[in-house]
């Protein structure tokens, strides 16, 4: 039963990774850009929430909408102001520009908030849980994270499938030139894609800030986990990303169970095994 509990905790942790991965996946899908600053954007969102919480003395959940709006505007501006030009310069230049942004954010946060770990206090929900048996305990907060993640992915799927802008996203993903010929302003569209991605990663950033602590150097880990979830699940599949996050989460929790401190390593090794034996991921849309 201890194992069952671990697996449940791992699945719930996977929901958190999927929240981070969804934005990464969206940006790559629409504009073929791997955003190396994605994790740092999530950490930045957590710090924005922290600032609002300490200024207004409210529960971090109430800051969520404001953080999402701030991050979305920020994402749109970064995309239109820098990354669109970087993508014109070439894919290599675009990756390097996002790497520059990542290092800038990490060090700005370091200067502004010191290297100390911070946390967001969401109050009583963090410590209450459903007790299924003596060994299987499901926390309300991890459960809420998972539900949020599923709602976000479902919403994203509806958005991409049913709305005019979603259709423009998919058209651009399939063939940017043809989409442009049909009257789609790809510069604005890329800005919107980045805005959506950062609004989603803002949710992930605040939730992970409530779940654990965060520091200016936490971004790369968030990026790596999100990235592993995307690759394990298979590129281009939103629900695959959720499964990828769950596989990674379960691997990490079980790894830590086998020996304390091995969680991350086991997670990485599962990822490398997938890369070695099934490089297209578990649920790839097309076999490469």
């Amino acid at each position: 039963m201890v194992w069952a509990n671990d697996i449940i905790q791992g699945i719930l942790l996977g929901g958190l990774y999927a929240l981070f991965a969804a934005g990464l996946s969206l940006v790559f899908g629409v504009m073929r850009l791997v955003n190396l600053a994605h994790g740092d954007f999530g950490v930045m969102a957590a710090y924005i929430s922290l600032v609002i919480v300490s200024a207004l003395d409210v529960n971090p959940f109430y800051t969520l909408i404001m953080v999402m709006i701030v991050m979305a505007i920020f994402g749109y501006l970064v995309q239109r102001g820098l990354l669109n030009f970087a993508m014109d310069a070439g894919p290599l230049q675009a990756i390097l520009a996002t790497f520059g942004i990542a290092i800038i954010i990490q060090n700005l946060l370091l200067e502004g908030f010191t290297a100390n770990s911070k946390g967001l206090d969401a109050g009583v929900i963090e410590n209450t849980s459903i007790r299924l048996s003596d060994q299987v305990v499901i926390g309300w907060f991890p459960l809420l994270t998972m539900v949020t993640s599923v709602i976000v992915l479902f919403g994203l799927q509806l958005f991409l499938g049913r709305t005019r802008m979603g259709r423009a996203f998919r058209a651009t993903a399939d063939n940017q030139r043809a989409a442009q010929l049909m009257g789609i302003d790809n510069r604005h569209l890329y800005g919107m894609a980045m805005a959506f991605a950062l609004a989603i990663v803002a949710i992930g950033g605040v939730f992970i800030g409530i779940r654990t602590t965060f520091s200016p150097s936490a971004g790369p880990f968030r990026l790596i986990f999100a990235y592993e979830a995307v690759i394990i699940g298979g590129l281009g599949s939103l629900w695959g990303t959720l499964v990828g996050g769950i596989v990674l989460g379960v691997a990490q929790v079980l790894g830590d169970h086998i020996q304390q401190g091995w969680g991350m390593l086991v997670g990485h090794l599962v990822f490398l095994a997938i890369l070695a034996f099934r490089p297209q991921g578990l649920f790839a849309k097309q076999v490469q």
Partner: protein
Amino acid sequence: MATPLKVERYTRASRIALPIVAVVIIAAATVPAWGSSNIMKQGVTFLALLALAQMWNLLAGYGGLVSVGQQAFVGIGAYTLWVFSEKLGLNPFFCVPIAGIVAAVFAFPTAGLAFRLRGGYFAVGTWVIAEVYRLLVTQTSWLGGGSGVSINSARQVEPSTREAIVFWWALAVAVGSIALVYLVLRSRRGVALTAIRDDEIGARSLGVNITRSKLWVYVMAAFGTGATGAVIYLNLLRVQPEAGFSLQWSALMIFAVVIGGLGTIEGPILGAIVFFALQQLLADYGAWYLILIGALAALVVVFAQRGLWGAIYRHWPVDLFPVRRRLCLETVCFPEETPAPSPSAHGSSPQPPIGPSLPPAAEPPEPEQ
């Protein structure tokens, strides 16, 4: 009668530059005779940065492999130094080439996995593998675990002797890295790399083995980065997994190359000088130097893709290192030695001719996933 067409590499500038470079190297080698301990320590930092930048440039500028996981090889170099000097009792100063070889050996399995990924996914993939190496070292108590290890055998050497030898090693890896890139570009392999960089599909159709060429570049860069890692930690004398496998190493090399100019030998040299100067100027302002350099690099990569060297080259086209091949018919060569701005085939904007020492105009598109 021989054909009047011949291929030339040397230009007037490079004939002048090479003796100057030789004089600079010889002058630098005398630093231990007169320099203070601090000058030598700073010198090692600079020379190591130069070597790392050259190796990253070989990888990304010529191989098209944007890795953000080269810290793996810095860390492997550092720990190889420790294992061979402390565990196996070798003279620590002999461990620099061994560190390079060990890093090159580790490059094969790393490439085996990372080469399954392309573009940005390759970049993050190399980063994950560097993390795996870091975590493996952290979890291995034989390697000192998370708290790290000291290079005690080098500490026992008399400080002035040690500093001099470390400085010479740093000079050797810096000059060696430039020589390596230079020789690679002059070799048959270099021509193949240039062809891949300019047009991967075209190169493949002419019989260039793409994967093997890229693997070869990756292993070479790992060798140079590993040897440099050993030199850095001969200077610092204490290795911790957090520091040895830190992303900061990638940030240093990437920013130096990007600011100086990707895909040239001169660019990373200039970039390393600028990076080092900014680092010294802003030494009292904590992390601000990285913020400033990161911003500079992000702007340069977008708005002046050829970096500082590219900006200089546009107005004053000299090749200090003769790696560009020019086709000469009797006394007329193409590209010309000092080409006048002329409408190029790419469009109406005047551009210097695209040669092997310039970055690609466009990367081949990624295959549909």
